[in-house]
């Protein structure tokens, strides 16, 4: 049983990395639709990893929200764009630098936190499994971050409405 879980972890982790690479550097196709589809696969692999950690709620929501809703909208928008122009476009040096800097920063944070925590230590995983426990935590201990995130989403929504209006009165 333990062995099977370890194997599944390696399978999902390897697939997630491969799919993630295919999103940004696919040697066979430069089509944004293909990139988006590989991103969906990456989300699926992440959901698999969450399941192995017994975070079933997180896994289900990962599929429901990211793979099922967000990526469908991505695909929707990509398909309505002019794909030919998008495929011809070369990578600009400025965006390359910006991308490398942000990836490097995230990598630095990951490495630092990996070094700081030893296996078996760190934050207690007290939200795994039960949905009601997770809900209670969100509305008690983590109420402020939760509300801030919802305000952030509201701001984004208001922004979209504002931008999509042609002439502001």
């Amino acid at each position, binding site marked *: *049983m333990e062995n099977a879980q370890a194997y599944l972890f390696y399978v999902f982790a390897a697939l997630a990395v491969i799919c993630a690479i295919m999103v940004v550097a696919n040697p066979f196709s430069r089509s944004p*639709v293909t990139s988006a*589809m590989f991103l*969906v696969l990456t989300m699926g692999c992440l959901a698999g990893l969450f399941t192995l950690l017994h975070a*079933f*709620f997180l*896994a*289900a*929501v990962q*599929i*429901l929200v990211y*793979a*099922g*809703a967000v990526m*469908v*909208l991505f*695909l*929707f928008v990509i*398909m*309505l764009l002019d794909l030919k122009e998008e495929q011809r476009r070369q990578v600009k040096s400025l965006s390359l630098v910006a991308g490398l800097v942000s990836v490097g920063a995230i990598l630095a944070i990951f490495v630092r936190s990996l070094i700081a925590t030893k296996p078996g230590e760190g934050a207690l995983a007290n939200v795994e*499994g*039960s*949905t*009601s426990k997770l809900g209670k935590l969100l509305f008690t201990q983590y109420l402020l971050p939760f509300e801030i995130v919802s305000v952030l989403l509201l701001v984004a929504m208001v922004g979209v409405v504002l931008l999509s209006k042609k002439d502001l009165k």
Partner: protein
Amino acid sequence: MFDNITNWIDGLTAMQQFVLFSGVKIFAVFGVLMTCVAYAVWVERKVAAAIQDRVGPNRAGPFGLLQPACDGIKAFLKEDFTPDHVRKAYFWIAPAIALIPALLTVAVIPFGSNLGAQKMVIADLNVGILYTFGIVSLGVYGIVLAGYAANSKYPFIGGIRSSAQMVSYELAMGMSVIPLFLWVGDLNLSQLVISQQGFVGWLPDALGSVRLPNWLVFQSPMLALSFFIFLVAAFAETNRTPFDLPEAEQELAGGYNIEYSSIKFALFFMGEYAAMITASAMMVTLFFGGWTLPWFGLDQPATSIPGGLLHIGIFFVKVVAFVFTIVWVRWMWPRFRYDQLMDLGWRRFIPLALVNIVVTALWLWIRSRS
């Protein structure tokens, strides 16, 4: 012979037994579902014929019962033509992506109480309903990619229209079941079925033997409204009339699947019917008591093999009743216009579902205070 098998099963470890029984359940459910898909087409054609005062398929076998087999053979043997201008990779995987989500959804639906020591559900997840919605939401990809793969105008418009429709109604569908789970307090579908045992408590005693089953649809007006929203959303999600715009024949020359032929076309077709059956199974489980019947103690988990089979039979009959209703509606209602469809989804059903959640929450809060 039978003893040998029992001994062999008892000799296995718990893990091996789990793998064995899960495998058997998966194959059995898959087999039954695919047979039902084939015969749903037959039912559709027979009901259509009866409503339009025709005979319907009657050549292959008695009452045309072998028609699905003939259709299957035809679909496999026809030329599988791939037009030059399509995007090959997507053209190949789109039909499979359209069919798979409908098949995966059944994994969490409890289709019976138990047979022997085995629970009659493939995966008894504690987030069952979220899993279902997650998988259903992946169904959009099949149609979007089919439209994109065809690389021509009409299928593309069909695909885009369909994805917009499915995304819109997914929201209403997801929100319509929240009152249900507020009411029951559990996301596990087996627990949900257990909570629907017996008769409803709110009917006056004066009615005597006239009693309603304690199914969630009858438990409160809010849940009845939930069912109504879910039903409409299920029609839209499975692309059935009055919401079958993705394949509006007159407007889009057939929609997202024009460029497909042979078994690839048949896969889209099967996907639609499989989705229809799983949507029916969901409605039965969520609102109509699953495998339970309040009479003759049939709402308790079975203790014997015949009892277990009877529960599976009850579930099956309920699902068939829903499938029949969905087919029936197709020949009774005209199609909605696209703007009407969007208006109904976003401006009627989503606010209605939101209000329903708030009202249910308020009602539960008041009840818990008193």
